[in-house]
């Protein structure tokens, strides 16, 4: 894979090895401009390390990282001027107000439109006059979100952005992401909650044990799509009747109930079920979460990544 200037973020064979299997290894990634890219992985998979590599907060042992067409290391200051970043761990600021925290970060950027800060604070229902240390985790997360969005960056890199937000604020956040994309920006967000990514992202990448195991659009990933079918039938039916059916797996038959997973055309399955007399039929598409876990197994990456 080659680096392309047109990408919002591009990595080639990036490795950061902390030893004993911890770190990220040979990561190739291309985040296109104008998209919302979801970066998924269980705890400790290497999401935060990868993000810190983009921000020049850690340096790769091998490989290259480009952000907005610039070298992440050489041009880090120019990059940071155009990027909004939300760290995975909330900083502590004892003895000062939320306004101080926002004001400091705005000041270090050379000033930000005050109306934009007010708008974001109102939108997230955040009282900037309160002491930062007295805020709840969710409210501190709002402070972090305000500082990430306040200078209307071209690229947003958000590490677990909805952590601690209530459902209403999560909806507000998704709305803000939508508006940001409409204005031409790019969003890279990490999460370990697949359903959240499913709601806002165009493409997703999955990292496990420090290695990028899958990248694709939601549609592409849905080539792995499947349905879970549950049916109540009139007459008993042998499991062997399902074995020969293409795309049917995980069949469970109990009394007059059949449940199975179907990838591809549904007709052969319906034909068999119909021959046994369908009383009730329920089918739903499996979520990305279920698809990923079926594909890659239950997360067990504790100790890997960072």
């Amino acid at each position, binding site marked *: 894979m080659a680096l392309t200037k047109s990408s919002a973020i591009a990595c080639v064979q990036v490795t950061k090895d902390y030893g004993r299997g911890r770190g990220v290894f040979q990561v190739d990634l291309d985040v296109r401009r104008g998209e919302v890219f979801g970066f998924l992985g269980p705890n400790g998979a290497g999401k935060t390390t990868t993000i*810190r590599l983009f*921000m*020049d*907060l*850690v*340096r790769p042992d091998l490989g290259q990282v480009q952000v907005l067409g610039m070298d992440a290391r050489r041009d*880090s*200051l*120019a990059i*940071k*001027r155009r*990027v909004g*970043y939300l*760290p995975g*761990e*909330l*900083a*502590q*600021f*004892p*003895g*000062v*107000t939320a*306004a*101080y925290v*926002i*004001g*400091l*970060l*705005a*000041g*270090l*950027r*050379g*000033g*930000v439109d*005050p109306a934009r*800060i007010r708008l974001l604070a109102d939108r997230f229902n955040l*009282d*900037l*006059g309160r002491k930062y*240390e007295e805020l709840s985790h969710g409210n501190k997360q709002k402070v972090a979100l305000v*500082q990430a969005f306040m200078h209307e960056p071209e690229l947003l890199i958000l590490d677990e952005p909805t952590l601690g937000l209530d459902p209403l604020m999560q909806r507000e956040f998704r709305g803000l992401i939508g508006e940001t994309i409409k204005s031409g920006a790019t969003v890279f967000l990490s999460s370990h909650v697949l359903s959240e990514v499913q709601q806002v992202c165009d493409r997703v990448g999955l990292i496990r044990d420090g290695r990028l195991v899958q990248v694709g659009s939601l549609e592409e990933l849905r080539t792995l799509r499947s349905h879970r079918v549950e049916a109540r039938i009139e007459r008993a039916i042998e499991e062997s009747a399902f074995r020969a059916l293409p795309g049917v797996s995980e069949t469970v038959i109990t009394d007059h109930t059949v449940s199975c997973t179907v990838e591809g055309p549904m007709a052969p399955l319906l034909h068999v079920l119909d021959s046994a007399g369908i009383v009730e039929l329920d089918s739903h598409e499996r979520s990305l979460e279920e698809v990923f876990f079926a594909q890659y197994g239950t997360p067990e990456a504790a100790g890997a990544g960072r």
Partner: protein
Amino acid sequence: MRSMERPKRLALVADTVRANRLSLALWAGAGAATMYAVAIMLVREFSTYPGGAKALAPTVEAAAEALRVLRWPAERLDTLGGYLTYHNILLLPLLLGIYCAIAGAQAVRGAELRGSLEGILATGISRTALVLERALGFLFVLLGITVGIGLGVAAGLAAGGEPDTWGALVTTGEAALAAFSFYTLGLLVSQFTRSARTAAGLTSLVMAVLFVFTNVWDQAGPIAVARFISPFFYFQQSRVLVPGHGFDPVATLMLVVLPALLLVAATIAFERRDYASSLSARRARPVVARSVLVQRRWLRTWWSAGLVRERISLLAWAAGAAAFAALVSSLEPTVREMWNKLEFIQVYLAQTPGASPTDQYLGFACSTMAPLAAAYAATHVAGWVGDLKQGRVELVLTSPVSWSRLVGERLTGLAVGVAVVTVSALVGLSLGAVAVGASLRPDGLLRVAADSVLFGIAIGAVGAVLVARLRSGLAPALLTLFIAASYVLDLFAPAFSWPAWVARLSVFNSFGQPYVEVPELAGLVYLGALALLGTILAAALSQRSPKVA
């Protein structure tokens, strides 16, 4: 269902010892070495002084009387035990007390504000047990320090021909008990304050007042009775190493009773208040929609934002330095009078032509600016590690701010802080001097201010290199060691007739006597080189490996 298990007993005692193991090692090691070296130095002084210890003692006693607010009492200075008690041991509970005050304030409130206490309380341990286990753990830490320093004192006494190992251990043990009172006081005060730092500052202030008061209580008239609440008073009552005094069991008992009472009070206060809220916290006010000014001029740089954030602490430093300097300079007539009576001091003073005795005394007062600046710089360096550990560095570096700029801004903030503290101290010194009619040298004051700022930046630059390389709590600990070693080197080099270049390695030696004369060029070059090269090296090290976690 599994039966509920009781939390592992005394786990917090072990955790407290583990958390303080580095400080324990530093205090015990550096304290023992200092005590031993000072004892050897005093033995040499006894042997080289014309007429020996018997002749030396009256002259030192006269000086000690003049400066009694700073250290008292001075008795049997003709013996190593008596002189060492006056010279070093009387200061031990004060110095150890500062460490204890900070540790006490942090023990509950600090952990609470860092968010690490909630999980511990959720294990089922009671608040009382938590406080008691933390205090017990810290007592073990003090025990280790006591043994280390005590053995240093014992080795020094043995080398001076007055062996008394048991006496040395009892003395340092009593010093540790006196200091432990300030651990428990810090613990109590922190139950009423919003932050652990405020509690540590208030406790240190109370401690300083008690220390000075205890030295002059017999001149305090009706408030002399207040001495009974001072741990320093009880410590002074039991001076095992001073011939003719010996062990005072009642005073020692009081050194146990005082911290016990404070511990009980702290426990009651902790039991009565809400978690993460001080006992004095006001009830929540009704929410009023308000317009908050977010972007301010002083928030545009990290250094100015930091100074505003730490303004209370800076004010406390400035006020404390001013009060101390005013106190020292106001003693000028008393000291000058005493000097006039001592022939050898006249000979010594004549070695600096062009400087009157008043100049020389005020020069001595101004020389305290160096340790003051060093202590201030050390707390700043500890703050830099805190910035890193608490995620502030990561957040700042995601703005268009480079590591080099951050290092530069940190040192700028430190330089401004040192300037504020120094100028405050010099104002205090001037007021004290004017009040007693002592004349001041404006050129001297300017030199002191400039030299102190350079000195502070030099120390800060060394700290910046350590922080850039280590990025852990080890950095301020090593910086403190560097400062202490430098101070001791400056003290010992002339006493042991070490070569001049060895003495010049000490930053305190390079500071010189700026009030009475322009410091030596070599010293200024050394401080300047430390400041400049340290800054460049710190920036390079930070930039080369910019890890934030």
